[in-house]
């Protein structure tokens, strides 16, 4: 027997239990979990992983909910003044508001006023965050809060850093909710969105514009409430980092390249909630201001391996080209470049990637794919692929991953290079890829075959699933981890 070890583990469990008894676990664990579950249910109800659709007056705008990558952080406020109970609140400011439209030509303090049932108000205890489009307002004839700094730095790998300052330029103290301040990067801020949609999450948003109609604008309602007072002259400042994957989402087309090439001068908009004097109710007021950013830095040249690729749509088929994915993750979010921790177990990530065609015919095709029961809980996916390119391919055998698309099923499993459940497609042009820290370069001669297998949690629905196998292409500049090129090998279990 091993009584000491059993005693030791039991004592540790009891120590954990004592910690549990002495803390408010709702704040630390249960409430955030509930929010995430609700969000997952909401997203699943919309049909496709990570994508929700907002039905708007006069049209449909798609929204890509950013799931958050390792390199993505919400705007971090680095200078926070304290609270003054006599400062202006939403109750004071709402009385001054008048309707604002895109082309009304007025100036002053811009705002957004959202109305919702209390049960849906994220600041009134509703445990899900939201991005919504709400009526635009003028809150004052003169600016109250102004963006006094908006500097954008572009790293070589496509990571965007924004340093900002928001100053109270009025002569009145204002209470703001700095914990829910959000930042938006737009490429055409003075027009109504034209169905492009936007990519949002973690209090960050990228879009062509925040105008969803001439009268309404998008505002994010996320974060943990934290009231502060901005006295006249006070400044909030902070930083935000947008990783390259975020620029793969809806409403981001051409923005990163445009910033790098200097052809797009993006605008930063800061939106900050003004809390009411009392408890949150059915209306929420946000103040906003924008500034064209000062940009420095350019992206590194793109490897030749990524030239000549053509956009691919979900469901599109071609015999003259190979299905592939371009995952622009930036080296910091590429597991292949993660610091080795001395363990043998590979790490995996599932970034959003751009679906592309590699012209010139098929390169690698599945010739066999089977699912067999491994034990009571698990199944084994086995595949065989052949090099049909007519030339030698250099591939990364350790990178092989599998996606089993069960449609609107939630995630049954999403680890170790196996995704079982939700469709990997985020939009009709982007889908989840799979990157790993493991690498095993191998030359596959023309006509040669490659096999692989993965074990996953058993689910009877897999019998009719669409399955895809992914494998990374080894490039001449493989030491550059900014982007990865994955071959996608589709297979339908329905035949």
């Amino acid at each position, binding site marked *: *027997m*091993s*009584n*000491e*070890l*059993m*005693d*030791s*583990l*039991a*004592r*540790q*469990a*009891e*120590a*954990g*239990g004592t*910690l*549990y*008894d002495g*803390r408010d*676990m709702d704040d*630390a*664990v*249960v409430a*955030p*979990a*509930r929010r*995430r*579950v609700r969000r*997952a*249910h909401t997203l*699943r109800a919309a049909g496709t992983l990570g994508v929700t659709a907002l039905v708007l007056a006069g049209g449909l705008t798609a929204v890509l909910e950013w799931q958050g990558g390792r390199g993505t952080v919400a705007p971090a406020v680095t200078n926070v003044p304290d609270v003054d109970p006599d400062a202006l609140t939403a109750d004071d400011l709402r009385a001054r508001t008048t309707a604002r439209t895109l082309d009304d030509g007025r100036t002053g303090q811009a705002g957004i006023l959202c109305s919702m049932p209390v049960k849906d108000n994220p600041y009134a205890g509703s445990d899900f965050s939201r991005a919504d489009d709400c009526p635009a307002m003028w809150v004052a004839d003169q600016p109250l809060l102004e963006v006094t700094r908006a500097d954008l730095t572009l790293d070589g790998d496509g990571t965007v850093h924004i340093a900002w300052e928001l100053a109270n330029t009025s002569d009145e103290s204002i209470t703001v909710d700095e914990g829910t301040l959000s930042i938006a990067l737009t490429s055409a801020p003075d027009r109504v969105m034209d169905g492009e949609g936007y990519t949002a999450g973690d209090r960050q948003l990228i879009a062509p514009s925040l105008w969803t109609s001439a009268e309404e604008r998008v505002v994010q309602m996320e974060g943990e409430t934290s009231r502060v007072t901005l006295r006249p002259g006070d400044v909030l400042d902070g930083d935000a980092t947008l990783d390259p994957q975020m620029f793969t989402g809806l409403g981001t087309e051409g923005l990163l390249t445009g910033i790098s090439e200097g052809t797009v001068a993006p605008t930063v908009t800061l939106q900050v909630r003004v809390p009411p004097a009392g408890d949150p109710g059915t209306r929420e007021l946000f103040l906003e201001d924008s500034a064209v950013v000062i940009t420095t830095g350019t992206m590194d040249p793109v490897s030749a391996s990524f030239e000549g690729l053509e956009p691919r749509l979900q469901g599109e088929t071609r015999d003259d080209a190979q299905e592939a994915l371009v995952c622009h993750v930036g080296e910091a979010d590429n597991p292949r470049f*993660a610091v080795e*921790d*001395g*363990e043998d*177990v590979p*790490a995996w990530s599932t970034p959003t990637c751009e679906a592309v065609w590699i012209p010139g015919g098929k390169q690698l095709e599945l010739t066999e794919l089977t699912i067999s029961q491994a*034990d*009571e*809980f*698990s199944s084994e996916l086995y595949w065989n692929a052949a090099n049909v390119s007519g030339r030698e391919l250099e591939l990364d055998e350790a990178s092989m991953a599998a996606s089993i698309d069960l449609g609107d*099923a*939630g*995630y*049954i499993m999403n*680890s*170790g290079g196996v995704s079982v*459940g939700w469709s990997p497609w985020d939009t009709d042009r982007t889908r989840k890829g799979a990157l790993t820290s493991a690498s095993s370069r191998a030359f596959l001669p023309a006509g040669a075959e490659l096999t692989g297998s993965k*074990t*996953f*949690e058993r689910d009877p629905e897999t019998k009719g699933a669409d399955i895809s196998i992914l494998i990374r292409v080894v490039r001449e500049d493989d030491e550059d981890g900014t982007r990865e090129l994955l071959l996608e090998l589709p297979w339908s279990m329905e035949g």
Partner: protein
Amino acid sequence: MSRWSETLDALMRERGRALYGYAFVLTGDAADADDLLQDALVRAFKRGRGPENVDAAHAYVKRAIQTTFIDTHRRASVRPRRDHRDADRVLQDPTAATTTRDALHEAVLALPPRERTCIVMRYFDGLASPAIAEELGISAGTVRGYLASAVETLRRTHGDFGLDPTDALEGGDEHVVITSKGGAR
């Protein structure tokens, strides 16, 4: 309130202490246990309509704690370090029971996540290697490999404190037991 939300409330009310304790055994850190339990709850409840009742939820969440802990092992704060120390430099007085238990748990926390999870399932849950294998979705042989490696590390770092390698690999229950209200597992 939706059914899954009610089940979640009931689970945390009746079994939250035990589940948190389990997460704490694996991580050894309150913040990491918070994260682990939160992730496990999300995994268990975002699928379909969620577990049917508290017992099912308990089983789901506990299993999710185990698999999530393994999946997220690269989280910096729970990153393991291979323990290359020798027994005579670690434990000067093996008769000091409290010291032994504390040092043992430190050694358990230094094990790689898969080995650590298997040791906890073997010596906290009392499961045999085939039952551990079923829970984790890996082969019994792989589990025995993890247990053997873990036991070897623990014996090397802490000497002979009664840990029997044969018992580690061959002993334990064949079935998972989820105890009812107030249960420690």
